[in-house]
């Protein structure tokens, strides 16, 4: 009964925000931020597209890319979007233990992806592709590195959310907090969808 009352209160606060738009300002800010992130990654992706054929020294892209390995990494990140959305639905139901479980699984999948990227970078450096080896190398490491940093920040956000839910430190709408973290996480996933196709699957 108490749980139902809390759930109803959550819904009321979520669907009836006392703002000029009637929407959550926090959520609006996150969408605005994600819109601006499109410009950041758009710049990095187009720089890569411009320079990917400029290999003055070092290995050629298609000679070093390990497509099976990157495909598995992509699959891991894609599935982390599923676990994230399951965390959001659990939070909307007011089920804290499931929310924490799915958030933790999402963080583990994200960390696995970052680990894979570190391994990939190490392998590329061993094969002679440094950051300043060629324009291809610089643009590749900058693009995928920025994405990797975003995933790492996402993992920290997920783990922090688990921590504050456990300590019951969220004063506002808990489901909305999880949803906003989820929006960031899904964005990181959609950016990788583009990077995977344009960088790895389309030969230069």
């Amino acid at each position: 009964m108490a749980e139902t009352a809390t759930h109803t209160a959550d819904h009321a606060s979520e669907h009836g925000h006392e703002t000029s738009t009637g929407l959550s300002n926090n959520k609006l800010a996150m969408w605005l931020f994600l819109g601006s992130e499109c410009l950041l990654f758009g710049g990095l992706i187009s720089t890569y597209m411009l320079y990917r054929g400029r290999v003055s020294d070092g290995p050629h892209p298609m000679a070093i890319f390990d497509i099976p390995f990157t495909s598995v990494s992509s699959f891991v990140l894609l599935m982390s979007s599923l676990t994230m959305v399951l965390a959001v639905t659990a939070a909307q139901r007011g089920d804290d233990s499931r929310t924490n479980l799915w958030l933790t699984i999402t963080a583990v999948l994200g960390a696995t992806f970052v680990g894979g990227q570190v391994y990939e970078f190490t392998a590329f450096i061993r094969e002679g592709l440094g950051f300043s080896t060629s324009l291809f190398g610089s643009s590749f490491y900058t693009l995928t590195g920025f994405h990797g940093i975003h995933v790492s920040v996402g993992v920290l956000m997920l783990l922090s959310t688990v921590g504050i839910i456990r300590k019951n430190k969220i004063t506002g709408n808990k489901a909305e907090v999880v949803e906003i973290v989820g929006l960031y996480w899904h964005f990181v996933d959609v950016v990788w969808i583009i990077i995977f196709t344009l960088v790895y699957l389309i030969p230069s």
Partner: protein
Amino acid sequence: MSTSTEQHEQEHGMSDAGYIKIALILAAITALEVSTYYVDFGPLFMPSLMIMMVVKFVMVVSYFMHLKFDSRIFSFMFYTGLGLALFVYITALATFKFFIS
């Protein structure tokens, strides 16, 4: 309880089973994308990859990020940024191509 779940689905989008179905479709599309690396798709290679990329992007944004079910203001904010990015960078890339030619 079931009424509460149904009401929840109506307000927030889909059920967990629905999201799992979307994830399976995304996984299948990813497998198809990877297959283009091994199988020769001929002239269909590039268009098919681009279409699959866009379909995956739209599915994640619409369903997982709830844009399909949420306020249109959120869609406007996101797609304005995306559209602006596409316009600016396609123009920039086309300009480089123009000067190189």
